[in-house]
């Protein structure tokens, strides 16, 4: 008899307000796995780590620590679905833990709001929750439609995994938890060159050409592995590799036609929650997933 687990869900900005199908699919999957999510309207933008850090680092870490403090006050562990948000909260939490002067400065600023950050909070991403807390066995039990025909390339992305001392993931070079979750859905894991290669998104503001060149290299490696689709957790990686796939193809002078799914969508397909994916495919998947759905054994929509 398992007890429902409750986490405070840190939503961020991109998933709820750009790619809500990430949230929708994952919420339904978590419901099946007896996980409850609570939210707080006191949470703000994490703040996003790729550019705001370079605008003002002290402001960034203060706002981030404030978000951690808001979570701490709920009494639950925090789970962030977006890799960027996870990275921001985990790094701020870790820095507060390691740097007593920083902690003091931040708590001084938080005092007026009645908030306090301890540096001891459990900041988690979906892999911590799915792989460690829920466990592969429990996930496999909910798989009613094993995706035996699919070969899936796991794209962890940089901010989910690094820096290891803050993220508490398994490995900075060769993480395995998403691989294991993919296997639990019945699908095969595609092995491709340079597993932890960056998607390129962070330098779209700095130099779009370079960013897309880096993305094209990564997509070429994944394509060469024969993967049917890429699975991601990060909405920014998704935007770069999926929404912008046309731009990447232009730079690479080649067609990729590789669908990208969020992990929630992959799990949903394997757990008989097909409509969640098919209902939203036209709106959020520029690269058509109709063939993929057929291969997944759930037919086209």
């Amino acid at each position, binding site marked *: 008899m398992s007890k429902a687990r409750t986490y405070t869900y840190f939503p961020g900005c991109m998933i709820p307000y750009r790619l809500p199908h990430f949230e929708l699919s994952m919420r339904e999957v978590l419901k099946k796995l007896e996980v409850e999510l609570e939210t707080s309207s006191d949470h703000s933008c994490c703040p996003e780590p790729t550019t705001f850090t370079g605008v003002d680092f002290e402001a960034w870490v203060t706002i981030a620590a404030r978000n951690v403090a808001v979570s701490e006050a709920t009494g639950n562990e925090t789970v962030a679905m977006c890799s960027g948000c996870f990275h921001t909260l985990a790094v701020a939490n870790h*820095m507060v833990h390691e740097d007593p002067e920083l902690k003091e400065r931040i708590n001084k600023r938080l005092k007026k*709001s009645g908030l306090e950050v301890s540096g001891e909070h459990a900041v988690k991403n979906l892999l911590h929750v799915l792989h460690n807390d829920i466990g592969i066995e429990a996930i496999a039990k909910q798989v009613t439609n094993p995706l035996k025909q699919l070969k899936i390339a796991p794209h962890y992305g940089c901010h989910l995994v690094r820096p290891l001392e803050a993220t508490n993931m398994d490995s900075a070079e060769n993480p395995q938890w998403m691989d294991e979750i993919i296997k639990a859905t019945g699908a095969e894991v595609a092995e491709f060159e340079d597993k932890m290669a*960056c998607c390129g998104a962070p330098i779209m503001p700095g130099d779009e050409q*370079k960013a897309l060149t880096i993305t094209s290299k990564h997509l070429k490696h994944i394509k060469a592995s024969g993967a049917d689709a890429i699975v991601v957790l990060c909405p920014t990686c998704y935007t770069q590799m999926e929404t912008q796939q046309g731009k990447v193809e232009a730079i690479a002078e080649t067609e990729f036609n590789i669908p990208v799914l969020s992990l929630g969508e992959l799990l949903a397909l394997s757990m008989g929650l097909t409509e969640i994916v098919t209902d939203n495919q036209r709106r959020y998947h520029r690269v058509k997933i109709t063939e993929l759905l057929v291969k997944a054994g759930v037919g086209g929509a």
Partner: protein
Amino acid sequence: MVTNDTNLNFRNWLLDQPEGKTLLRCYQCGRCTSACPVADIEPAFNPRLFLQKIILSDELIAEEQLVWNCLTCEQCEVRCPEHVKIPHILILAKVRGLMKGNVPPAALDRARNILSIGRSLEVSAPMLKTREKMGLPDLGTPPMEKIVEMLADIGIVGNLEKVESVYGGSKDE
């Protein structure tokens, strides 16, 4: 002479920032440069050389556009034998160069959004409706007055009002 900053002001400031001290562990082996995916496609992007300039307190690096070509992927940091926090040090160089205008316009847009509406992007009414239709909960709005007030001693809000990117006007995303 490499730098006019004979008092090492820039370097000392950086060493004082959270996790800035790892800079001095660097012994210029160059593994970061051979690990870097940007260095692979751009010869002028050389993490080791950037670190060298920062170690020598060459403040011009803070105005260098190339620092905004760093992916913050941390591949260099993961491979560095001394675990120098390289992307973080480049971030600090960016911070130092903000008021000189060395910042992409998109970064300024996002920062201004974050400090005015508490989100990195505009939240449109149709999007809120979509959430409702999906059965997703209303996430409310964060207490912006309190957040801005909390940052008073940092002065970021004032800075953002004054600063202009040397790379042109703001871009839509």
